[in-house]
């Protein structure tokens, strides 16, 4: 019984360490870049960037590819997919993303929307 406890504590320590390292990497990713912008990739190729995620007025635009159309909405420092003609609509259900490193993936359309950069220390959780 004691041996089991010891082993469990060992593994809990190992996994805690892993989580801490991952958190550190995430925080580092956010600190190292200054500005928050978004990149849109289609089939792995960068097709569009959004430089300002916090425009005065929210706006939407369509991303048309040979695989289909996604409507991307930019408002108050966040990006979301407000509409899509893809099969599963997972990209629409995903909702808003607003932090560096977050991404929305539309697998049927092979589309990735990813936020890069950081809006500063206040963005750190």
């Amino acid at each position, binding site marked *: 019984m004691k041996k089991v406890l010891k082993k469990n504590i060992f593994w809990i320590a190992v*996994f805690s360490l892993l989580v801490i390292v991952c958190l550190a990497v995430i925080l580092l990713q956010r600190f190292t870049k200054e500005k928050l912008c978004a990149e849109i990739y289609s089939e792995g190729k960068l097709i569009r960037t959004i430089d300002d995620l916090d425009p005065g007025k929210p706006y939407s635009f369509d991303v048309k590819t040979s695989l289909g159309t996604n409507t991307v909405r930019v408002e108050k420092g966040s990006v979301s997919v407000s509409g899509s003609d893809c099969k599963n609509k997972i990209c629409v259900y995903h909702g808003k993303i607003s932090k560096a490193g977050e991404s929305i993936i539309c697998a049927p359309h*092979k589309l990735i929307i990813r936020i890069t950069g950081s809006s500063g220390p206040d963005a750190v959780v």
Partner: protein
Amino acid sequence: MRVSVKQITMIGIFAALSLIIFMVEAELPVFEGGGIKLGLANIVTLCAMKLLGRKEAGAVLAVRVLLASVFCGSAISLIFSASGAFLAYTVMCLLIGRLDDRQLWVVSVFGAIGHNLGQTFAAYFVCGSAIAFSMLPYLLISAVITGALVGIVSMKLVSSPLRRFSMAKK
């Protein structure tokens, strides 16, 4: 190796259970399809590994992945779930003999990590971009948490009256 009627029956029952759990989970629009998932179906894989054996668990997993993609997936989602499932299965097969029953949750965590790594590699090849790897720290954290939960549930199940169905050689 001869496959007995009992083995086929058990594999069928476990695969059906696994498929139901997987499809119910897929209906929950909580997390992104290619990314974070609870991996509840892995409870069945783990129990199958403990109660039936590794080969049988592999059969259960293969049936589940194939049928799930027939019922509710596409070719792309098949690539994602197959690579995740394959890596998870390999990792768990290697570990389950080396760790004792009370460490099943550790096997589960490593399985979840393997699953998420497999999906990351699939995302890398399908999307042709290193972007997939920026998701990795998030996926690893979720793997530790969900893997531990799934493992604890599996340990309870394996030591429950279910163990009467055990066919694994001691």
